[in-house]
């Protein structure tokens, strides 16, 4: 196995990791604040991808331009879903929120199956197969863009959390819910905003993934399990964790596939996961509480 192949595998792994980071960033935010795993994450990603698909095929809007439509739309969807459904049905109890999101995911997936039918669809845009030379690797342009935007998004979200008032409020609620309420923060509003932001990242992820991948009612399953792994690996609630975790998983999958074969290579992800949890149970950057 010569150096160029290993180098190319590393680059492919990093780019793949960028996609995982994108899907995981919303999940980690929702967990960090609401302290629940959003089981509807996969099906909502699928919904967003269908949105991008139809924006292109029905209205001719390029997937990268539709970010400006999808991100606000998904934010609004998340906000309304929380205010109208999840928040109401769960009466504030964490276990209930979990079950509601699970129910939501089943509902969304089967509605999609009913309306969109089972087949998978791909899109073709003028730059779908444009290749860029990155060191020893030939990389499709959409993957490169996806990586760049994913990193930028995580950086932007991190800054948002640190520097803005809402970001501070979100961090306050994440750390100490009762205390936040006591200092006058509208906790329910923060929950709804956080859920909205979590879904907004899925909107961006969908726009970046459509030129590379395919969409079908079950496409969410393909990515969401890896996203969960990234979130736990990186530390729940940490954006830096989502980035580093995503890249580690991407590299592991890439090298695992290269050395152990694509079928066995999947084991690499689970092995790393177990190792990190054994030695650092809160994840790489998670808080120790």
């Amino acid at each position, binding site marked *: 196995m010569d150096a160029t192949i290993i180098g190319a*595998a590393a680059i492919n792994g990093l780019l793949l990791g960028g996609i995982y980071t994108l899907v995981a960033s919303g999940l980690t935010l929702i967990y960090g604040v609401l302290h629940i795993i959003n089981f509807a994450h996969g099906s909502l990603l699928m919904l967003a991808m269908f949105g991008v698909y139809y924006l292109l095929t029905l209205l001719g809007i390029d997937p990268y331009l539709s970010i400006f439509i999808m991100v606000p739309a998904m934010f609004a969807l998340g906000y309304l879903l929380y205010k109208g459904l999840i928040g109401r049905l769960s009466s504030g109890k964490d276990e209930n929120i979990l079950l509601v999101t699970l129910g939501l995911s089943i509902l969304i997936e089967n509605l999609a199956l009913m309306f969109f039918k089972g087949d998978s669809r*791909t899109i073709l845009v003028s730059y779908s*197969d444009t*290749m860029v030379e990155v060191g020893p690797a030939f990389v499709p342009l959409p993957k490169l863009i996806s990586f760049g935007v994913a990193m930028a998004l995580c950086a932007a979200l991190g800054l948002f959390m640190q520097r803005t008032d809402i970001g501070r409020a979100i961090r306050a609620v994440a750390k100490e819910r009762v205390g936040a309420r006591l200092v006058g923060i509208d906790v329910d509003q923060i929950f709804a905003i956080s859920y909205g932001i979590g879904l907004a990242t899925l909107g961006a992820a969908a726009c970046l993934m459509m030129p590379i*991948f395919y969409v079908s*009612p079950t496409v969410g399953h393909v990515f969401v399990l890896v996203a969960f792994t990234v979130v736990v690996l990186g530390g729940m609630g940490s954006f830096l964790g989502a980035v580093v975790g995503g890249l580690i998983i991407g590299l592991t999958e890439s090298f695992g*596939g290269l050395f152990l074969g694509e079928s066995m290579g999947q084991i690499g992800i689970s092995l790393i996961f177990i190792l990190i949890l054994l030695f650092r149970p809160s994840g790489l950057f998670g808080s120790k509480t």
Partner: protein
Amino acid sequence: MTTTHPLSRRLILQAGAASAVLGAPGLLLAQPAPVKVGLVHPVSGFLAYNGGQARMGAQMAIDEVNAAGGIKSMGGAKLEALLGDSQSRPEVGVSEVERMQQDGVSAYLGCFASGIALPATQAAAKYNTPFLIDVGASDLIVNRGLKNVFRLKPGFGKCVDDAVVALGEINKGGGGAAKTAVLVHEESEFGSGTAKLLAAKLPGINIQPLETIKHANPTRDFSNIALRIKGIKPDLVIMSNYQNEYVLLARTLMQQKVDVAAMFSVLGGGFNYKLIKEQPDVAQYMMDFNHWFNPKSAKAMALKKQVEAKGGLFTFEIYLSYNCIMLYADALQRAGTNDKQKVIDALASSTWSPDVMPYGPTKFVNGQNEGARGALLQASKTDIDVVWPNDFASAKPIFPRPKMS
């Protein structure tokens, strides 16, 4: 309790008389009970497209049989489809079989995937219910000694044998450009079985399989497999996998400019009109050994028009399952009953000729139709041509393909 209620006994007698009176007109009209056919297909999950197509083909055939007056020898009994979704999972396929057994099916049609067909046919065997295999390629399906299983189309053994002959001829015609190959396959029964057979047969036509690469369903990214193949530099990449992975792999190989004499697939899951429609640049020059309709059959062309008029694509799942229903209808007609054993006997002795396919009369040996065969196909940016065997060919093969780099 020793007290009886004369009223309730009277009520029962009255009710009985009433229903006899009410039922009598029904008895007089005597519409024969419909024959229930259980369709077990993966209409959700990763095989959803293929399952949906297979179901459509079966329903088209059932509608056609019913429109023509049903099964004449059974007093015009109509066929009734019971729809089942195996969700692309074997255990759900089995539970659908059991559920339909409760609903009184006379036969099953399914399951698209070999991995689902294997346990599903076994479940049906408990009740001796005839099971018509629409697409499943594995030869294990028909050589377990189950008397209720009938497969009209060729299994992967026959397909690999014919594919290798076709490849050998085309390679000779192309000046022997191909000497080595890398096999890529999906990890379940279909892919593994096909790849194993290929690896054994290729040396017979002077093509060395350098490596066999297995991948999971689903696989998110084929960059590393493409890298490995690039490092090995084979003359051919031969793939056996399902819809999504087939397309992703082909696309990745093209993007990575992996130069080969051909991207050849045996029973390629994604080689169809959908690929040409959605990814014409990827589809161009790809070759697939697969099931194909007889391009000289008027009936086949009429079916194709019918499907395309509804905005659908005429993929092999449609006509393979269409044929299974027609085969079953023919067996019902000859047996004159939907009694399971009698139908099994009628199927076993069937000589029905599927005009839509390039098969000839049916001849079942241990449940496998010996008359069945596939064809070698090649895609252009707009269409799919048969390039082998010559008696059905509509175009000459382009081999080796032009370089990508």
